[in-house]
């Protein structure tokens, strides 16, 4: 007992010397790292990515194939832990394989939105004047159009496939990032280090890409977490409306298929939805905490 107390460096009673205190302070995690919510979020998101990555190993074969008797309730038969649908398809296999499409569409669409938004916002914020005016109008245009309608029209032109859905969601999601990047660039372009870079005779592309962008990037990247979350929600909405890739299972299409038996076999709708809520929730928690860390004034306190 005495040994244990003596060995523990964080017990102030045994270790009152200033050297030890400062060491114990250095070793204690910062406040945000001790937040249990953050770790729950990270754990959920990681497991979603792991499930998506190893979907083919955990449930080999096509999740659209019949696996067992139809309409088994969750927990009824342990070989189908989440039950089966009207065609005897394993719901657990569907959810695990659906994670692939949902996460991939969310992440890829957010990357596309990030790329377009940063480019438009950087040019508008850095150059100002006519360029800014035109690009701001363009941003407002895309904010005015109801995104889902635009996506539906785009999907009407081409056949629904995962790349087209990524393109449609990405092209509709960038205005938020563009506004953020623009305001960052507008405040940074007058900063001393940018003046210094101009004084040194650096070219405009170098100032934008090497000087301002690295300083603006953390805020923008954190904001992208919202884009990923919204991308997953948008994909769910689209595939619920039967506008997704018909050959791919996604969480939204599982909800759409389960809807026909909503009154009786409601677990077919509830469980895929729960997967969406948990994943999006974990992304939002992580995004919120990162925002607090970057900008302590914005958060609680």
């Amino acid at each position, binding site marked *: 007992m005495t040994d244990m107390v003596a060995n523990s460096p964080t017990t102030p009673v045994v270790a009152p010397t200033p050297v030890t205190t400062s060491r114990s302070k250095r070793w204690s995690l910062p406040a945000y790292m001790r937040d249990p919510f953050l770790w729950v979020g990270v754990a959920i998101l990681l497991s979603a990515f792991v499930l998506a990555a190893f979907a083919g190993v955990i449930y080999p074969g096509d999740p659209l194939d019949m696996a067992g008797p139809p309409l088994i309730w969750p927990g009824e038969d342990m070989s189908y832990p989440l039950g089966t649908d009207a065609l005897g398809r394993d719901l657990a296999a569907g959810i695990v394989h659906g994670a692939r499409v949902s996460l991939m569409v969310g992440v890829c669409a957010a990357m596309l939105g990030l790329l377009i938004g940063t480019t438009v916002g950087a040019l508008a914020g850095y150059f*100002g*004047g006519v360029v*800014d005016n035109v690009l701001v*109008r*363009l941003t*407002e*245009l895309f*904010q*005015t*159009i*109801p*995104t*889902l*309608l*635009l996506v*539906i*029209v*785009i*999907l*009407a*032109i081409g056949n629904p496939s995962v790349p087209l859905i990524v393109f449609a969601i990405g092209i509709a999601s960038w205005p938020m990032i563009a506004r953020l990047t623009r305001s960052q660039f507008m405040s940074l372009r007058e900063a001393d280090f940018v003046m210094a870079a101009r004084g040194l005779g650096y070219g405009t592309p170098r100032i934008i890409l090497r000087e301002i962008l690295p300083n603006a990037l953390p805020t923008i990247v954190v904001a992208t977490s919202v884009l990923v*979350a919204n991308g997953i*929600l948008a994909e*769910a*909405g689209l595939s*619920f*409306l039967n*506008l997704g890739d018909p050959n791919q299972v996604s969480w*939204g299409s599982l*909800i759409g298929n389960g*809807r026909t038996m*909503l*009154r009786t076999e*409601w677990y077919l*709708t*509830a469980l895929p*939805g729960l997967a*969406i*809520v948990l994943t*999006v*929730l974990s*992304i*939002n*928690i992580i995004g*919120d905490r990162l925002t607090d860390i970057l900008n302590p004034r*914005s958060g*609680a*306190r």
Partner: protein
Amino acid sequence: MRNADRRNASDRDNGVRGHNQLASIQSAKRIVRRVGVQAVPTVFGIIALNFLLLKLMPGDAADAIAGMSGSATVETMEALRRSLGLDQSTITQLIAYVTNVATFNLGVSSNYGAPVISVIMERLPNTLLLMLSAFSLALLFGIVIGWAMAVFANRWPDRLLTTGVLLLYSAPGFWVGLMAIVLFSAHLGWLPSGGSETIGVPLTGLAKLRDRAVHLVLPAAALATFFVAIYARLTRASMLEVLRQDFMRAAAAKGLHPIVLQFRHALRNALIPVTTVAGLHLANLLSGAIVVETVFNWPGLGRLAMNSLIARDFNVLLGILFLSSIIVIVTNIAIDLIVMWLDPRIEA
């Protein structure tokens, strides 16, 4: 650019000073600027985008008409194209398109065999009703919850509400709607699961109103969830910002009643950014309405869009895209005017 900034700054000073008759001239100017500089280019942009999408669509109007009549020879197709102006240059076609759209001539629906504008107008009131109800619900609950979170900042009611709001923020509205159907209409039998009114029962007066209201509850609530979360988070952040200000301490030191302090001083100032941002989410609200309408069989624009997509009725699809964008623009201008009226320091 910097000159323009200075000009804006001096305008803003005038806005503060301008009170009586000056204020009305100022605000009239602002409205003109708001419409002329921001709204008109956006409308033209939307028309141009619509035209681009129309050009990208597989097949053209002649194909659609030929498809309806069943058969067509190469010669009749050519004659048809000529009569529709499809043999003209793209620029000429664009000008013709802009002229048509500007007079709300959005073409004919191949699916319904009626002018697009009348097909849309038939459904529009239902969507507007759904949107407006959800919007009011979201603002009301969002502000109340956000205010409560700020008042109890970092204590357990705040943590509880923050978690709840984050859940709403992460749940797809259509799924919340489906779960609400399971609970409130399948299991409890309290509310109808779809449609906008009871079919086959002729109701009048108060009974009709009640019937429609009962049908509206679940769709409006499902559509509102996501936006309740947005407005609650905004109100919380904005309240915390206001509570930190010096004038709040001064008002408290003056001995004002806490209720007066909370409502007249804190909440009122905190609501200004909330109102401004509320307008930004109108387009998203319309997007959400499309999915929610499908869940609840609500006869509005969203269902019309889905039906038109299946029937490949591109004129109706583009008409909905155009008209809903116009609705967003008009409502945004209205919100701007309300904000200006609430707080004379703000200009468009």
